[in-house]
Protein backbone atom coordinates (compact mmCIF):
# COMPACT_ATOMS: atom_id res chain seq x y z
CA UNK A 1 0.00 0.00 0.00
CA UNK A 2 1.36 3.42 -0.99
CA UNK A 3 0.97 6.71 0.93
CA UNK A 4 -1.55 7.84 -1.73
CA UNK A 5 -3.65 4.76 -1.03
CA UNK A 6 -3.47 5.47 2.70
CA UNK A 7 -4.72 9.00 1.99
CA UNK A 8 -7.59 7.65 -0.13
CA UNK A 9 -8.60 5.27 2.64
CA UNK A 10 -8.55 8.08 5.21
CA UNK A 11 -10.56 10.30 2.84
CA UNK A 12 -13.16 7.56 2.39
CA UNK A 13 -13.57 7.02 6.13
CA UNK A 14 -13.88 10.76 6.84
CA UNK A 15 -16.40 11.18 4.00
CA UNK A 16 -18.53 8.33 5.33
CA UNK A 17 -18.54 9.78 8.86
CA UNK A 18 -19.51 13.23 7.53
CA UNK A 19 -22.27 11.77 5.34
CA UNK A 20 -23.67 9.78 8.24
CA UNK A 21 -23.65 12.87 10.44
CA UNK A 22 -25.46 15.08 7.96
CA UNK A 23 -27.88 12.41 6.76
CA UNK A 24 -29.00 11.31 10.19
CA UNK A 25 -30.91 14.49 10.84
CA UNK A 26 -31.84 13.70 14.42
CA UNK A 27 -28.20 13.26 15.34
CA UNK A 28 -27.26 16.40 13.42
CA UNK A 29 -29.74 18.66 15.19
CA UNK A 30 -29.41 17.18 18.66
CA UNK A 31 -25.65 17.72 18.46
CA UNK A 32 -26.28 21.41 17.80
CA UNK A 33 -29.22 21.94 20.11
CA UNK A 34 -27.78 20.20 23.20
CA UNK A 35 -25.08 22.78 24.05
CA UNK A 36 -27.43 25.63 23.16
CA UNK A 37 -29.98 24.35 25.66
CA UNK A 38 -27.27 24.40 28.31
CA UNK A 39 -26.26 27.87 27.30
CA UNK A 40 -29.75 29.31 27.04
CA UNK A 41 -31.34 27.65 30.07
CA UNK A 42 -28.70 26.38 32.48
CA UNK A 43 -26.35 29.32 32.14
CA UNK A 44 -29.21 31.83 32.28
CA UNK A 45 -30.51 30.18 35.45
CA UNK A 46 -27.14 30.20 37.16
CA UNK A 47 -26.17 33.60 35.89
CA UNK A 48 -26.88 35.32 39.19
CA UNK A 49 -26.17 32.39 41.48
CA UNK A 50 -22.56 31.81 40.60
CA UNK A 51 -20.20 34.72 40.68
CA UNK A 52 -16.99 34.11 38.80
CA UNK A 53 -13.97 35.98 40.04
CA UNK A 54 -11.10 37.00 37.83
CA UNK A 55 -9.15 33.84 37.02
CA UNK A 56 -6.81 33.12 34.13
CA UNK A 57 -7.19 33.23 31.17
CA UNK A 58 -9.81 35.94 31.77
CA UNK A 59 -8.52 39.39 32.66
CA UNK A 60 -11.81 40.78 33.82
CA UNK A 61 -15.05 39.71 35.49
CA UNK A 62 -17.02 37.55 33.10
CA UNK A 63 -20.65 36.45 32.90
CA UNK A 64 -21.32 32.80 33.69
CA UNK A 65 -22.21 32.10 30.03
CA UNK A 66 -18.70 33.04 29.03
CA UNK A 67 -17.26 30.78 31.72
CA UNK A 68 -19.12 27.64 30.66
CA UNK A 69 -18.68 28.10 26.87
CA UNK A 70 -15.35 26.18 26.73
CA UNK A 71 -16.89 23.43 28.87
CA UNK A 72 -19.76 23.19 26.43
CA UNK A 73 -17.30 22.96 23.53
CA UNK A 74 -15.65 20.04 25.34
CA UNK A 75 -19.11 18.60 25.99
CA UNK A 76 -19.86 18.66 22.25
CA UNK A 77 -16.70 16.64 21.74
CA UNK A 78 -17.46 14.28 24.61
CA UNK A 79 -20.91 13.52 23.20
CA UNK A 80 -19.50 13.21 19.72
CA UNK A 81 -16.87 10.73 20.93
CA UNK A 82 -19.57 8.70 22.66
CA UNK A 83 -21.87 8.96 19.64
CA UNK A 84 -19.12 7.66 17.42
CA UNK A 85 -18.45 4.88 19.90
CA UNK A 86 -22.16 4.06 19.97
CA UNK A 87 -22.23 3.89 16.19
CA UNK A 88 -19.23 1.54 16.26
CA UNK A 89 -21.02 -0.80 18.67
CA UNK A 90 -24.07 -0.56 16.43
CA UNK A 91 -21.91 -1.19 13.35
CA UNK A 92 -20.43 -4.22 15.02
CA UNK A 93 -23.80 -5.64 16.02
CA UNK A 94 -25.20 -4.90 12.58
CA UNK A 95 -22.10 -6.27 10.87
CA UNK A 96 -20.91 -3.17 9.00
CA UNK A 97 -17.87 -2.96 11.27
CA UNK A 98 -16.58 -6.04 9.45
CA UNK A 99 -16.40 -4.07 6.21
CA UNK A 100 -13.90 -1.76 7.86
CA UNK A 101 -11.89 -4.45 9.59
CA UNK A 102 -11.33 -6.61 6.50
CA UNK A 103 -9.72 -3.73 4.65
CA UNK A 104 -6.10 -4.55 3.74
CA UNK A 105 -4.82 -1.52 5.65
CA UNK A 106 -3.34 -2.16 9.12
CA UNK A 107 -5.88 -2.13 11.89
CA UNK A 108 -4.15 0.64 13.87
CA UNK A 109 -4.45 2.85 10.78
CA UNK A 110 -8.14 2.04 10.28
CA UNK A 111 -8.90 2.86 13.91
CA UNK A 112 -6.87 6.08 13.75
CA UNK A 113 -8.66 7.06 10.54
CA UNK A 114 -12.00 6.36 12.20
CA UNK A 115 -10.88 8.51 15.12
CA UNK A 116 -9.76 11.39 12.86
CA UNK A 117 -13.09 11.22 11.03
CA UNK A 118 -14.94 11.62 14.29
CA UNK A 119 -12.66 14.52 15.26
CA UNK A 120 -13.37 16.34 11.98
CA UNK A 121 -17.10 16.10 12.68
CA UNK A 122 -16.69 17.26 16.29
CA UNK A 123 -14.54 20.26 15.29
CA UNK A 124 -17.14 21.37 12.72
CA UNK A 125 -19.84 21.09 15.40
CA UNK A 126 -17.71 23.10 17.82
CA UNK A 127 -17.29 25.94 15.32
CA UNK A 128 -21.02 25.99 14.54
CA UNK A 129 -21.64 26.30 18.28
CA UNK A 130 -19.08 29.12 18.57
CA UNK A 131 -20.83 30.90 15.69
CA UNK A 132 -24.21 30.73 17.43
CA UNK A 133 -22.72 31.49 20.87
CA UNK A 134 -21.46 34.79 19.51
CA UNK A 135 -25.06 36.02 19.77
CA UNK A 136 -24.89 35.27 23.52
CA UNK A 137 -22.01 37.70 23.73
CA UNK A 138 -19.49 34.94 23.95
CA UNK A 139 -16.98 36.76 21.83
CA UNK A 140 -13.39 35.71 22.42
CA UNK A 141 -10.65 37.66 20.62
CA UNK A 142 -10.79 37.05 16.84
CA UNK A 143 -7.43 35.26 16.93
CA UNK A 144 -8.90 32.92 19.56
CA UNK A 145 -11.06 31.29 16.91
CA UNK A 146 -7.85 30.19 15.23
CA UNK A 147 -5.80 29.29 18.30
CA UNK A 148 -8.61 27.12 19.66
CA UNK A 149 -8.37 24.83 16.62
CA UNK A 150 -5.37 22.73 17.78
CA UNK A 151 -6.94 22.48 21.24
CA UNK A 152 -10.21 21.24 19.73
CA UNK A 153 -8.33 18.71 17.62
CA UNK A 154 -6.33 17.41 20.58
CA UNK A 155 -9.29 17.18 22.94
CA UNK A 156 -11.42 15.67 20.14
CA UNK A 157 -8.73 13.01 19.66
CA UNK A 158 -8.71 12.19 23.35
CA UNK A 159 -12.48 11.93 23.70
CA UNK A 160 -12.80 10.07 20.39
CA UNK A 161 -10.11 7.60 21.48
CA UNK A 162 -11.99 7.09 24.74
CA UNK A 163 -15.08 6.32 22.65
CA UNK A 164 -13.07 3.76 20.66
CA UNK A 165 -11.88 2.04 23.83
CA UNK A 166 -15.42 1.85 25.16
CA UNK A 167 -16.75 0.53 21.86
CA UNK A 168 -14.19 -2.29 21.88
CA UNK A 169 -15.14 -3.34 25.40
CA UNK A 170 -18.91 -2.98 25.28
CA UNK A 171 -20.52 -6.27 24.42
CA UNK A 172 -23.94 -5.09 23.36
CA UNK A 173 -25.80 -1.98 22.43
CA UNK A 174 -27.99 -2.29 25.52
CA UNK A 175 -24.98 -1.77 27.78
CA UNK A 176 -24.44 1.65 26.34
CA UNK A 177 -26.87 3.34 28.72
CA UNK A 178 -24.53 2.30 31.54
CA UNK A 179 -21.68 4.05 29.79
CA UNK A 180 -23.70 7.24 29.65
CA UNK A 181 -24.27 7.05 33.40
CA UNK A 182 -20.83 5.90 34.43
CA UNK A 183 -18.66 7.76 31.94
CA UNK A 184 -20.31 10.80 30.41
CA UNK A 185 -22.07 12.27 33.44
CA UNK A 186 -19.26 11.77 35.98
CA UNK A 187 -16.69 13.09 33.52
CA UNK A 188 -18.73 16.15 32.74
CA UNK A 189 -19.85 17.05 36.25
CA UNK A 190 -16.59 16.25 38.03
CA UNK A 191 -14.67 18.74 35.94
CA UNK A 192 -14.08 22.45 35.54
CA UNK A 193 -16.69 22.65 32.77
CA UNK A 194 -19.51 24.08 34.89
CA UNK A 195 -17.71 25.64 37.85
CA UNK A 196 -14.20 26.86 38.53
CA UNK A 197 -12.07 24.46 40.53
CA UNK A 198 -11.33 26.95 43.31
CA UNK A 199 -15.03 26.87 44.11
CA UNK A 200 -15.04 23.09 44.13
CA UNK A 201 -12.03 23.15 46.47
CA UNK A 202 -13.94 25.32 48.94
CA UNK A 203 -16.72 22.77 49.21
CA UNK A 204 -14.86 19.44 48.92
CA UNK A 205 -11.17 18.74 48.70
CA UNK A 206 -11.78 15.15 47.55
CA UNK A 207 -13.98 16.28 44.67
CA UNK A 208 -11.38 18.89 43.83
CA UNK A 209 -8.73 16.19 43.36
CA UNK A 210 -11.10 14.00 41.39
CA UNK A 211 -11.66 16.98 39.09
CA UNK A 212 -7.92 17.53 38.87
CA UNK A 213 -7.18 14.02 37.67
CA UNK A 214 -10.19 13.93 35.31
CA UNK A 215 -8.82 14.28 31.78
CA UNK A 216 -12.03 16.07 30.80
CA UNK A 217 -11.05 18.96 33.10
CA UNK A 218 -7.83 19.28 31.17
CA UNK A 219 -9.61 19.12 27.81
CA UNK A 220 -11.87 21.95 29.02
CA UNK A 221 -8.96 24.05 30.33
CA UNK A 222 -6.94 23.46 27.17
CA UNK A 223 -9.85 24.77 25.11
CA UNK A 224 -10.52 27.65 27.53
CA UNK A 225 -6.96 28.98 27.41
CA UNK A 226 -6.60 28.41 23.66
CA UNK A 227 -9.82 30.30 23.01
CA UNK A 228 -8.16 33.33 24.59
CA UNK A 229 -4.89 32.82 22.73
CA UNK A 230 -3.03 31.29 25.66
CA UNK A 231 -1.29 27.98 26.14
CA UNK A 232 -1.90 25.63 29.06
CA UNK A 233 1.03 23.17 28.90
CA UNK A 234 -0.06 20.94 31.81
CA UNK A 235 -3.49 20.36 30.29
CA UNK A 236 -2.00 19.83 26.83
CA UNK A 237 0.35 17.21 28.28
CA UNK A 238 -2.41 15.41 30.18
CA UNK A 239 -4.71 15.40 27.14
CA UNK A 240 -1.93 14.14 24.84
CA UNK A 241 -0.93 11.42 27.32
CA UNK A 242 -4.54 10.30 27.81
CA UNK A 243 -5.05 10.20 24.02
CA UNK A 244 -2.04 7.94 23.64
CA UNK A 245 -3.17 5.66 26.46
CA UNK A 246 -6.74 5.38 25.12
CA UNK A 247 -5.45 4.70 21.60
CA UNK A 248 -3.18 1.89 22.79
CA UNK A 249 -6.12 0.36 24.66
CA UNK A 250 -8.37 0.68 21.60
CA UNK A 251 -5.86 -1.01 19.28
CA UNK A 252 -5.49 -3.76 21.89
CA UNK A 253 -9.27 -4.10 22.17
CA UNK A 254 -9.63 -4.50 18.41
CA UNK A 255 -6.58 -6.73 17.95
CA UNK A 256 -7.66 -9.94 16.21
CA UNK A 257 -5.50 -12.13 18.46
CA UNK A 258 -5.67 -10.58 21.89
CA UNK A 259 -8.60 -8.23 22.29
CA UNK A 260 -12.15 -8.84 23.34
CA UNK A 261 -13.27 -9.26 19.75
CA UNK A 262 -11.58 -12.65 19.67
CA UNK A 263 -12.96 -13.79 23.01
CA UNK A 264 -16.46 -12.68 22.23
CA UNK A 265 -17.14 -15.54 19.89
CA UNK A 266 -18.47 -14.19 16.61
CA UNK A 267 -21.97 -14.63 15.35
CA UNK A 268 -22.04 -18.40 15.25
Amino acid sequence: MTPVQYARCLGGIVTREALRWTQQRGRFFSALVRPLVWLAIFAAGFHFVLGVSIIPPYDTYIPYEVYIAPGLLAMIQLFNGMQSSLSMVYDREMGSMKTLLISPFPRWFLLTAKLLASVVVSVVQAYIFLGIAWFWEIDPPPLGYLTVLPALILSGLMLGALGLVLSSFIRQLENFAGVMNFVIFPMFFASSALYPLWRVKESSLTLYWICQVNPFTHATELIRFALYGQAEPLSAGVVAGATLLFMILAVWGYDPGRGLLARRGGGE
Partner: protein
Amino acid sequence: MTAASAVALDVEGLSHAFGPRAVLRDVGFTLTPGDFTVLLGLNGAGKTTLFALVTRLYHSRDGRIAVFGHDLRQQPSAALAAMGVVFQQPTLDLDLTVQQNLAYHASLHGMAGSRARLRIGEELERVGLADRRHSRVRQLSGGQRRRVELARALVHDPALLLLDEPTVGLDIESRRFLIDHVRHLCRERGLAVLWATHLIDEADDTAKVIVLHHGQVLDQGPVPQVAERAGAGTLRAAFDRLTGGGR
Protein backbone atom coordinates in the same frame (compact mmCIF):
# COMPACT_ATOMS: atom_id res chain seq x y z
CA MET B 1 -4.86 -9.51 -9.28
CA THR B 2 -1.41 -11.13 -9.40
CA ALA B 3 -1.47 -14.66 -8.16
CA ALA B 4 1.67 -15.51 -6.22
CA SER B 5 0.45 -19.09 -5.93
CA ALA B 6 -1.86 -21.35 -7.91
CA VAL B 7 -3.78 -22.06 -4.72
CA ALA B 8 -6.34 -19.34 -4.00
CA LEU B 9 -7.06 -20.32 -0.43
CA ASP B 10 -5.05 -22.78 1.61
CA VAL B 11 -6.30 -23.70 5.08
CA GLU B 12 -4.19 -26.16 7.06
CA GLY B 13 -4.75 -27.71 10.48
CA LEU B 14 -7.03 -24.90 11.60
CA SER B 15 -8.46 -25.20 15.10
CA HIS B 16 -10.23 -22.61 17.20
CA ALA B 17 -11.95 -22.49 20.54
CA PHE B 18 -13.90 -19.90 22.50
CA GLY B 19 -12.75 -20.61 26.02
CA PRO B 20 -13.15 -24.34 26.64
CA ARG B 21 -15.58 -24.73 23.71
CA ALA B 22 -13.83 -26.06 20.58
CA VAL B 23 -15.50 -24.63 17.49
CA LEU B 24 -13.13 -25.82 14.77
CA ARG B 25 -10.92 -28.92 14.89
CA ASP B 26 -8.07 -29.51 12.48
CA VAL B 27 -9.85 -28.04 9.47
CA GLY B 28 -7.98 -28.18 6.17
CA PHE B 29 -8.86 -27.59 2.51
CA THR B 30 -7.65 -25.78 -0.60
CA LEU B 31 -9.42 -23.73 -3.25
CA THR B 32 -7.99 -23.20 -6.73
CA PRO B 33 -8.97 -20.45 -9.21
CA GLY B 34 -12.24 -21.26 -10.99
CA ASP B 35 -13.44 -23.49 -8.13
CA PHE B 36 -16.99 -23.10 -6.87
CA THR B 37 -16.76 -24.74 -3.47
CA VAL B 38 -19.72 -25.12 -1.17
CA LEU B 39 -18.95 -25.20 2.54
CA LEU B 40 -21.88 -27.25 3.72
CA GLY B 41 -22.85 -27.45 7.35
CA LEU B 42 -25.79 -27.06 9.67
CA ASN B 43 -26.20 -23.96 11.81
CA GLY B 44 -23.53 -24.07 14.49
CA ALA B 45 -21.17 -26.25 12.42
CA GLY B 46 -18.45 -23.58 12.61
CA LYS B 47 -18.91 -21.91 9.21
CA THR B 48 -19.11 -18.34 10.52
CA THR B 49 -16.11 -18.86 12.80
CA LEU B 50 -14.17 -20.22 9.84
CA PHE B 51 -15.11 -17.10 7.86
CA ALA B 52 -14.07 -14.83 10.73
CA LEU B 53 -10.67 -16.54 10.84
CA VAL B 54 -10.14 -16.50 7.07
CA THR B 55 -11.06 -12.79 6.94
CA ARG B 56 -8.79 -12.08 9.94
CA LEU B 57 -11.56 -10.72 12.13
CA TYR B 58 -9.70 -12.77 14.69
CA HIS B 59 -6.62 -14.94 14.71
CA SER B 60 -6.59 -18.68 14.72
CA ARG B 61 -4.96 -20.31 17.73
CA ASP B 62 -3.63 -23.22 15.67
CA GLY B 63 -3.17 -23.76 11.98
CA ARG B 64 -2.32 -21.71 8.94
CA ILE B 65 -4.34 -19.74 6.39
CA ALA B 66 -2.80 -18.50 3.14
CA VAL B 67 -4.40 -16.55 0.29
CA PHE B 68 -2.53 -16.93 -3.02
CA GLY B 69 0.52 -17.92 -1.00
CA HIS B 70 0.28 -14.92 1.35
CA ASP B 71 0.18 -16.11 4.94
CA LEU B 72 -2.64 -14.30 6.74
CA ARG B 73 -0.48 -13.68 9.81
CA GLN B 74 2.71 -12.66 8.02
CA GLN B 75 1.23 -10.74 5.07
CA PRO B 76 -2.32 -9.79 6.06
CA SER B 77 -2.45 -6.82 3.68
CA ALA B 78 -1.70 -8.82 0.51
CA ALA B 79 -4.02 -11.62 1.63
CA LEU B 80 -6.97 -9.32 2.42
CA ALA B 81 -6.50 -7.28 -0.77
CA ALA B 82 -7.06 -10.45 -2.81
CA MET B 83 -10.37 -11.36 -1.22
CA GLY B 84 -13.93 -10.11 -1.54
CA VAL B 85 -16.39 -11.02 1.20
CA VAL B 86 -20.17 -11.16 1.55
CA PHE B 87 -21.00 -11.70 5.21
CA GLN B 88 -24.02 -13.46 6.57
CA GLN B 89 -25.30 -10.30 8.26
CA PRO B 90 -26.17 -7.36 6.03
CA THR B 91 -23.32 -4.84 6.23
CA LEU B 92 -24.55 -1.96 4.08
CA ASP B 93 -25.12 1.49 5.52
CA LEU B 94 -28.86 1.98 5.09
CA ASP B 95 -28.75 5.79 5.25
CA LEU B 96 -26.23 6.08 2.43
CA THR B 97 -26.83 5.57 -1.27
CA VAL B 98 -25.67 2.51 -3.18
CA GLN B 99 -22.92 4.59 -4.79
CA GLN B 100 -21.76 5.99 -1.43
CA ASN B 101 -21.61 2.51 0.10
CA LEU B 102 -19.56 1.13 -2.76
CA ALA B 103 -17.28 4.19 -2.92
CA TYR B 104 -16.58 3.75 0.81
CA HIS B 105 -15.58 0.15 0.18
CA ALA B 106 -13.36 1.19 -2.76
CA SER B 107 -11.58 3.73 -0.55
CA LEU B 108 -10.98 1.00 2.06
CA HIS B 109 -8.99 -0.73 -0.68
CA GLY B 110 -7.12 2.46 -1.58
CA MET B 111 -8.72 2.75 -5.03
CA ALA B 112 -8.57 6.03 -6.95
CA GLY B 113 -11.87 7.85 -7.40
CA SER B 114 -12.03 7.52 -11.20
CA ARG B 115 -11.23 3.81 -11.16
CA ALA B 116 -13.69 3.26 -8.32
CA ARG B 117 -16.50 4.98 -10.24
CA LEU B 118 -15.77 2.87 -13.30
CA ARG B 119 -15.68 -0.41 -11.37
CA ILE B 120 -18.80 0.46 -9.35
CA GLY B 121 -20.65 1.13 -12.62
CA GLU B 122 -19.49 -2.19 -14.11
CA GLU B 123 -20.41 -4.30 -11.09
CA LEU B 124 -23.80 -2.65 -10.61
CA GLU B 125 -24.50 -3.21 -14.28
CA ARG B 126 -23.74 -6.92 -13.87
CA VAL B 127 -26.19 -7.31 -11.01
CA GLY B 128 -28.83 -5.25 -12.84
CA LEU B 129 -28.86 -2.34 -10.41
CA ALA B 130 -27.08 0.40 -12.39
CA ASP B 131 -30.26 2.49 -12.34
CA ARG B 132 -30.44 2.31 -8.53
CA ARG B 133 -26.96 3.75 -8.08
CA HIS B 134 -28.22 6.88 -6.35
CA SER B 135 -30.99 5.24 -4.33
CA ARG B 136 -30.61 4.96 -0.59
CA VAL B 137 -30.03 1.37 0.46
CA ARG B 138 -33.04 1.63 2.79
CA GLN B 139 -35.27 1.89 -0.30
CA LEU B 140 -34.06 -1.43 -1.76
CA SER B 141 -35.58 -4.86 -1.24
CA GLY B 142 -33.71 -7.63 0.59
CA GLY B 143 -32.73 -9.30 -2.67
CA GLN B 144 -31.47 -6.04 -4.16
CA ARG B 145 -29.41 -5.31 -1.03
CA ARG B 146 -27.77 -8.71 -1.32
CA ARG B 147 -26.92 -7.98 -4.95
CA VAL B 148 -25.38 -4.66 -3.93
CA GLU B 149 -23.29 -6.52 -1.35
CA LEU B 150 -22.09 -8.91 -4.02
CA ALA B 151 -21.24 -5.99 -6.34
CA ARG B 152 -19.40 -4.33 -3.47
CA ALA B 153 -17.35 -7.44 -2.72
CA LEU B 154 -16.16 -7.43 -6.35
CA VAL B 155 -15.43 -3.71 -6.82
CA HIS B 156 -11.71 -4.08 -6.03
CA ASP B 157 -11.46 -7.03 -8.44
CA PRO B 158 -10.58 -9.80 -5.97
CA ALA B 159 -9.51 -13.25 -7.14
CA LEU B 160 -11.07 -15.01 -4.14
CA LEU B 161 -14.71 -14.52 -3.16
CA LEU B 162 -16.10 -15.66 0.18
CA LEU B 163 -19.83 -15.74 0.82
CA ASP B 164 -21.32 -16.71 4.17
CA GLU B 165 -24.93 -17.92 3.85
CA PRO B 166 -25.60 -15.31 1.14
CA THR B 167 -29.09 -16.54 0.27
CA VAL B 168 -30.57 -16.58 3.77
CA GLY B 169 -33.91 -14.79 3.79
CA LEU B 170 -34.05 -14.35 0.01
CA ASP B 171 -36.91 -15.38 -2.27
CA ILE B 172 -36.38 -18.13 -4.84
CA GLU B 173 -35.74 -15.74 -7.72
CA SER B 174 -33.12 -13.68 -5.87
CA ARG B 175 -31.47 -16.87 -4.68
CA ARG B 176 -31.30 -18.25 -8.19
CA PHE B 177 -29.88 -14.99 -9.53
CA LEU B 178 -27.16 -14.90 -6.90
CA ILE B 179 -26.05 -18.51 -7.44
CA ASP B 180 -26.09 -18.21 -11.24
CA HIS B 181 -24.19 -14.92 -11.13
CA VAL B 182 -21.47 -16.26 -8.86
CA ARG B 183 -21.09 -19.48 -10.86
CA HIS B 184 -20.81 -17.40 -14.01
CA LEU B 185 -18.00 -15.39 -12.36
CA CYS B 186 -16.15 -18.60 -11.58
CA ARG B 187 -16.24 -19.68 -15.20
CA GLU B 188 -15.70 -16.28 -16.78
CA ARG B 189 -13.11 -14.71 -14.46
CA GLY B 190 -11.61 -17.81 -12.93
CA LEU B 191 -12.71 -16.55 -9.53
CA ALA B 192 -12.22 -18.96 -6.63
CA VAL B 193 -15.40 -19.05 -4.55
CA LEU B 194 -16.15 -20.39 -1.08
CA TRP B 195 -19.90 -20.45 -0.59
CA ALA B 196 -21.03 -21.35 2.93
CA THR B 197 -24.56 -22.62 3.29
CA HIS B 198 -26.78 -25.07 5.13
CA LEU B 199 -28.95 -25.52 2.01
CA ILE B 200 -27.86 -28.73 0.30
CA ASP B 201 -29.49 -27.90 -3.03
CA GLU B 202 -27.08 -24.98 -3.50
CA ALA B 203 -24.36 -27.53 -4.31
CA ASP B 204 -25.08 -29.10 -7.69
CA ASP B 205 -23.10 -31.94 -9.25
CA THR B 206 -20.51 -29.64 -10.84
CA ALA B 207 -19.56 -28.03 -7.51
CA LYS B 208 -16.99 -29.09 -4.97
CA VAL B 209 -18.20 -29.54 -1.45
CA ILE B 210 -16.69 -29.45 2.04
CA VAL B 211 -18.90 -31.08 4.65
CA LEU B 212 -18.35 -29.36 7.99
CA HIS B 213 -19.98 -30.82 11.09
CA HIS B 214 -19.34 -29.91 14.74
CA GLY B 215 -16.21 -28.05 13.63
CA GLN B 216 -14.69 -30.93 11.70
CA VAL B 217 -14.40 -31.61 7.98
CA LEU B 218 -16.09 -34.97 7.42
CA ASP B 219 -15.37 -35.18 3.69
CA GLN B 220 -14.55 -32.96 0.75
CA GLY B 221 -14.26 -33.11 -3.02
CA PRO B 222 -16.46 -32.97 -6.13
CA VAL B 223 -20.10 -33.62 -5.21
CA PRO B 224 -20.40 -36.96 -7.09
CA GLN B 225 -17.25 -38.29 -5.39
CA VAL B 226 -18.40 -37.31 -1.92
CA ALA B 227 -21.75 -38.98 -2.58
CA GLU B 228 -20.05 -42.12 -3.85
CA ARG B 229 -17.63 -42.37 -0.92
CA ALA B 230 -20.58 -42.14 1.46
CA GLY B 231 -22.31 -44.91 -0.51
CA ALA B 232 -25.22 -42.61 -1.31
CA GLY B 233 -26.93 -41.63 -4.52
CA THR B 234 -27.31 -37.94 -3.74
CA LEU B 235 -25.47 -35.30 -1.74
CA ARG B 236 -28.43 -35.02 0.60
CA ALA B 237 -28.27 -38.73 1.42
CA ALA B 238 -24.49 -38.53 1.75
CA PHE B 239 -24.77 -35.56 4.11
CA ASP B 240 -27.26 -37.44 6.27
CA ARG B 241 -25.01 -40.48 6.44
CA LEU B 242 -21.89 -38.49 7.20
CA THR B 243 -23.53 -36.41 9.91
CA GLY B 244 -25.65 -39.20 11.31
CA GLY B 245 -28.81 -37.41 10.21
CA GLY B 246 -27.60 -34.01 11.37
CA ARG B 247 -27.04 -35.05 15.01
